Structure formats: structure tokens, C-alpha cells
């Protein structure tokens, strides 16, 4: 079995791989239905021994299932997506065709992002040229090897070229950009800005995901409910733990709306228990020293601040809860460090969102009030408003952008013969 990820050293390497992909896309018809079947089988292999321990495998296993992807495909490309034909649109017909080659620049912090990104473009029938960040090569290789085993005739893998090269090789980034018709770019501010500035063809479509941060919010009816409290805290802990709080959908701050007679400390005690339990279930096996340092600094700076500040943390850098008051989003530390801020009124906090907030995780007792908050959040730039515990569920749209449709061309065919006219003529005979 070939190594699914090739290290490239020259622009010519990239040009050659792109030419091969282009040929496949031009010459072969893509069947979304067949692709979904294969992806479902791939999902099943991620439960096998060895693969199940891969970071993000549990998530990917669910996401690659037909039950997840088919609705996504139908919503974005319409009901005709599966019969390979055209769907009517008034007197016209519409059909999705691939853009061509889609370049993928996944972020280096989410292990499954190369796979998530390429599957989105693949479902549009595109060829995928994926730059795998150095830190994700091993995990991506192991996942892709599972697909290689299933896809012997290359129905999917023939449309995928995974490459890796040092992030400082600007010439290789440029070569990759020149070859693509579309790009899916994920990452932090610096990375996204650098990739966007590459010499893409004038026609290339860019879909940018990130940099964003996410926020959780609860009203007193939710957080002060002694019965529901443990479950809410568990959901928050899960949202914080997944991707080590480094994803754009990871909550960095939890706003608690003040309630009459509600005791914040009770809630924070419960949250501590949930964090400790989540840590026992999913302990880190490594950490960058700079993150340890940042976590220690966040704890100290918080407590060296106003007298109202409180914090809870173990002797390890495993998790941190910083409690205070205020409606400003503090500078995120990441690394399982959650700021819990008490506010008088949740709309005050939402009113300060500046467009950087991607996901708002909510637990609100009153549905009508939640609608009002969602309306306000949407107006202030939030793209996803979800229940706490579901902040990372990768669905469409993401960052306010569809996942498949931006990388397809919707071709419109208005038939030259008017079908109604023909019917009328024949009926007159």
C-alpha cells in the first residue's frame, strides 16, 4: 500500500500531482451515492482496534455516516444530487458540477480537519489537493490508510492527493495555490491571512473558516436548576475538552446570567466536579510547554486582579476555572481554561460581540427568550447558535458558509425547446 501522504520538495511535484487530479476529475463521473457508501464503510473501520484511539476518531465515525452526510448533501445540492441528473427549477434545470481541484489548508490544531475538509469538497466531485500540517501527518496517514484498504479501485482516493511540506516553504504554498480552482482555508489569523494572499487564479473560490472563538451562555433558570445542573456542567466540560479547547468552536468563556437567589458558587462547584471527571476520562498525554506556561500565567493574572476574582484549578495544568464578573470576553488562554463571568443581562454580553464569535452555546430556560438572544447574536456576527454540549457538531453551514456548495458550480440549463409549446403543438394535431 502506498503512503497516502507524500512529502513534496519542489513546485513541480505539486504541479504534477495537480495535473493527475485534474485528469481524474475531467474523465470520470462522480457518484455521490457511491461515495456515501464508501464513506460509511470507512466510518465503520474507525471502530477497529488501533483506529479507535486516533484523536477525533469517535467524532469522525459519526460524521462520516450516511445519516450525517446525506442530509447535508441534499440540503446544499438539492434532491437531484443522488440521481446524478438535473433537477427542475421552474422552466430551467440545475445540476451541480465540481469546481475542479480544491486546495485544502487545514489548521494544525484539529487532528481530523484534513479529513473533514477534503470530504466536503469530495462530495461535490472535486479533486482534493490537501496540505497536511506537519503535526497531523501521522494521524491523517492512519485514517487515510483505512480508506485505502476499502477503496481498491480508487473511486475516492483517486481524487485525493495528500501532501506535506514545511510551512515556511512559500514557493510550495504558491505552487499549490496556482493549481487550484477553489480553496478551503482553516486556521488562525496569521495562517489564514498568509494563505489568502497566495497567487490563486482569478477564478478560484475561497472558503475561509476561522479564526473565530466561541462562547457559552446560560440563564439562571438553566444554571440554577439543581436537577439539570450536573448534566449542563457535563456538557460544558465536554465542549471544553474536545480539541483541547483550541478549536474555533471551543467555548472560552461562559456567561452566567444573574438570577434572584441563585448561588453561583454551587454551580461552579458542580462545574469543578464535571471538569475533574472529564479530565479523568480524557487526560492529556502531552502538552506544549508554552501552553503550560500560558495556563499558569492565566491563573496568576486572574487572581492578581480585582478582589472579586476567584479561581479553581488542580496542581497540574489539566484544567482551570476563572470566576468573575463582567460582559467582556477575556483573552482566551485555551488549554481547558474557562472563564466564568456573571452578567446582569445576557444581551449585554452579546451586544459586545464583535464578529469574532463563531458559536454561541446556550442553555436558556425560556424558548421565546432564546429566540430573542439568537436574533441578537446573529446580528452581532455569531454564525452558529446551538445547545451546550453540541458546540463542535460539525454541520452545515459552518462559519456561516455551506460546506459543499461553495466548491461546486450550479449549472443552469434552460432548454432551447419550450416543453409546453411542444405539448400544445402535439395536442393540436
Amino acid at each position, binding site marked *: 500500500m502506498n503512503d497516502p501522504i507524500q512529502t513534496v520538495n519542489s513546485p513541480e511535484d505539486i504541479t504534477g500531482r495537480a495535473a493527475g487530479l485534474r485528469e481524474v476529475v475531467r474523465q470520470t463521473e462522480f457518484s455521490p451515492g457511491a461515495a456515501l457508501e464508501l464513506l460509511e464503510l470507512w466510518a465503520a473501520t474507525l471502530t477497529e482496534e488501533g483506529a479507535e484511539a486516533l484523536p477525533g476518531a469517535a467524532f469522525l465515525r459519526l460524521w462520516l455516516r450516511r445519516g450525517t452526510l446525506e442530509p447535508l448533501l441534499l440540503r446544499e445540492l438539492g434532491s437531484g444530487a443522488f440521481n446524478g441528473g438535473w433537477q427542475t427549477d421552474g422552466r430551467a434545470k440545475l445540476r451541480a458540477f465540481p469546481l475542479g481541484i480544491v486546495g485544502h489548508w487545514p489548521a494544525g490544531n484539529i487532528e481530523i480537519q484534513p479529513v473533514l475538509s477534503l470530504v466536503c469538497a469530495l462530495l461535490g466531485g472535486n479533486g482534493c489537493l490537501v496540505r497536511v500540517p506537519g503535526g497531523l501527518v501521522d494521524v491523517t496517514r492512519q485514517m487515510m490508510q483505512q480508506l485505502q484498504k476499502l477503496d481498491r479501485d480508487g473511486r475516492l482516493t483517486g481524487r485525493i492527493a495528500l501532501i506535506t511540506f514545511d510551512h515556511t516553504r512559500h514557493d510550495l504554498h504558491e505552487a499549490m495555490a496556482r493549481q487550484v480552482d477553489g480553496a478551503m482555508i482553516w486556521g488562525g489569523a496569521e495562517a489564514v491571512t498568509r494563505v489568502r494572499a497566495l497567487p490563486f487564479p482569478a477564478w478560484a473560490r475561497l472558503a475561509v473558516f476561522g479564526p473565530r*472563538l*466561541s462562547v457559552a451562555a446560560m440563564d439562571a433558570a438553566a444554571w440554577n436548576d439543581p436537577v439539570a445542573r450536573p448534566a449542563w456542567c457535563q456538557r460544558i466540560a465536554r465542549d471544553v475538552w474536545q480539541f483541547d479547547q*483550541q478549536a474555533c468552536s471551543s467555548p472560552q468563556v461562559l456567561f452566567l446570567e444573574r438570577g434572584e437567589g441563585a448561588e453561583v458558587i454551587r454551580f461552579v462547584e458542580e462545574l469543578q466536579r464535571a471538569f475533574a471527571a472529564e479530565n479523568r476520562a480524557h487526560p492529556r498525554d502531552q502538552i506544549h*510547554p508554552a501552553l503550560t506556561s500560558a495556563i499558569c500565567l492565566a491563573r496568576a493574572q486572574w487572581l492578581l486582579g480585582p478582589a472579586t476574582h476567584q479561581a479553581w484549578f488542580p496542581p497540574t495544568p489539566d484544567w482551570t476555572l476563572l470566576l468573575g464578573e463582567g460582559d467582556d470576553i477575556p483573552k482566551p488562554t485555551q488549554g481547558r481554561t474557562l472563564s466564568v463571568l456573571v452578567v446582569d443581562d445576557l444581551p449585554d454580553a452579546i451586544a459586545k460581540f464583535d464578529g469574532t464569535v463563531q458559536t454561541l452555546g446556550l442553555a436558556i430556560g425560556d424558548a421565546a427568550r432564546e429566540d430573542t438572544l439568537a436574533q441578537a447574536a446573529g446580528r452581532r456576527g455569531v454564525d452558529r447558535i446551538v445547545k451546550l454540549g453540541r458546540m463542535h457538531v460539525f454541520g452545515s453551514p459552518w462559519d456561516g458558509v455551506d460546506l459543499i456548495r461553495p466548491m461546486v458550480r450550479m449549472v443552469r440549463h434552460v432548454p432551447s425547446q419550450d416543453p409546453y409549446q411542444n405539448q400544445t403543438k402535439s395536442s393540436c394535431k
Partner: protein
Amino acid sequence: MSTLLEIEERIGALLAGEPYRLDPAQHEATVLALLKDELAGAGERHRPLRQYIESWPGDYRRCPRIADLPFLPVGVFKNNPPLALVPPAEITRTLASSATTGQVPSRVVLDAATAKRMTKGVMTVIRDFIGPARRPYLVIDTPDTLAGRGELGARGAAIQGLRSFATEVVCGLSADATGQLRLELETLRECAARWRDGEVLVYGFTHVIWHQLVQPLAAAGLTLPLPNARILHSGGWKRLQAQAVTKDVFARGVAAAFGCPAERVIDFYGMVENVGVVYPDCEQGNKHVPAFAALIIRDPLTLAPVAVGQQGLVQVCSVLPTSFPGHLVLTEDLAELIHEDGCPCGRRGTAFRFVSRMPKAEVRGCGNVEIARDRPAAANA
């Protein structure tokens, strides 16, 4: 709780003794007890610090090891105003770290008593390495670095710290109007002729010695014949690593410049947040911890102390400061624990080797928001 006077006496006793002869267990017990009392005192005088100490997991008063005491990450010393345990009127000097361009320097405040202990601490350590005698002191820096009584940079502080060993002080560099450093070759030649075979103390920042003295002399094919010079240097290797100048290459280059054996070139580790405690290399290439300090190397994953042979984040501990909370400081440096005791050089206690500055974190991905959107981009440029 001990009074400040009692604490002062106990610090004085540690400073007065031999710096590297204490039995490690005795050392741990003595320093632990002193640090607990100093923490209590610091908490009394600084409300936010008390809040931090009291939020620490576990009561520090019952901690069985120095490693369990609440430490501060070094980044808090970048706060403005600097953390102070004394009223502004008692601050006699502020020391600032040598932050590179664009970085915020650390700043620590000294009162007269702390400043005195700092000087004594450096003297006690250095004396153990070069002996007590006073000798001519050649500073590979400019006279400006020594000037100013208010705020003093790391270079100035290190230079001042060795002044007690000097019979006279000569600066080997000058700065032109643009701040460009220039070697005072005539002065150096005159000194070399005058001092000849006598003991001489030379000090400079590592990169300054290399770029402003060793390289120009080598390029000109010149030597300053001072065969009994002791060359101390500090300030880190970051700027020289990029040029592949290793510790060995550096020592040989400096030795060639002075016509002395490379063994007379001593690298020492220190920082303003741990002022008064310096860590010179012993003849085994290890760094040792004096009686009035402690050093813990922590595993970044658990923050637990590492075992011998392992690397981790350095935490420096010192009983010396009473004007700023520099008692237990987690640095951003990585080191390796070589011995818990028993270095062949004869110095007791912890021996370690500096490894590197902590590498910067990798790009943190899609959650790494650097620019607030409502702020115009130009304001962040």
C-alpha cells in the same frame, strides 16, 4: 508567623555560610520553612498575592516540599506597575530584563535591604568560583550601561553585581551617537599591558562578548594577552545559536582572544526575577543551587518535579527578596536535572544544565483570534 526581622536574620545566616555545602535534606527544610514565612509576609502586604496564594490547591503552610508551594509564572513580572511588597517610597531601584525588540521587559523593584542581599548573594556564589580576591574588572560593555540609579537593565545589574570584586573598573566598549557599539582597542591594549599576568575579572553579555570583542579581535588577528583572566558571561545563547556558536566554540573563541585556557571562561545563568542568585557552570559543566535558593525542574504535562536525567520547565526559588514576590518563580526556560546531589565538583545539592528558552507554541489553529474585528487593522500594525 515570623517577623521581618527574624526572617532577615535567617536569610543572613544562609548568606553567611558556605553556599554549596549544606546537606540537601537540611537545605530543603531550612529553605522551605523560610519560604513559607516569606509567603505569609508577602500575602500580608499584598492583597492580590494573598488571593493567589489562598487559591492554590492545598494550604502552603502544610506543604511538605518546596515544590508544593505556590509559585508565580515569570510573566506576572511584566505587569505595570511592577509587583511590589513595599511602599513606593521604599523602592530604591527597579531592575528590568533584557527583553528583545517588541517584548515587554520584566521589572522587579528593590528596596535597600533587598538590594544589599542581592549583592551579597552574587558575591557569595561568584566567590566560590573565582575566589575572594579583588582584581581589575574589565567590563565588555559601555559606561552608559552602568549609569542611572532609577531603572537598571539586566546587563547593568549583572555588571554591578560583580563590582565588589573590582579594584578598578574599565569598560571595553563605547557607543557612538547612533548607539553603535565600538571596541576601545587602545584602552584594552593599555589595560592588557598594565595587568599582564595578574588575575583579571572580565564580564559581558554572551552575545556582546562574541560580536563586539571576539569577532573584531579575530578579524584583526589580535589578542589581548591576559592569561589569568576569568571571563564570566551570561544573558543567553539565543542570538548565537542562530550562528551555530556553541558553548564550546564560544569558550575557545574567548580563550583565544585573551590568550587564556578555555576553562577560565564561565557561563552563568540568571535573571532579574531571581536577582541575587546566579548559576555559574562548574568544571563538570553543571549549574548548582546555592544555600539561599532552590531550583525545581517541572514536567510541563504535570508540573511535578522531574527525575534525574529528565528535562522540564525551570522554577527558581530564592529567599532573598522582600521587596517583590520573587520567591518562587516558574520561568520560561527548559533545563535538565543532572544530579539531586553528588556532583563530582564537590558542590552539594541540585545540579542542572540549561537546555534552551521555551520554544514558542505552535500556531494554535482556528481558535487563535488575534485581532478584534471592531478594531481597525491599522491599529494593530
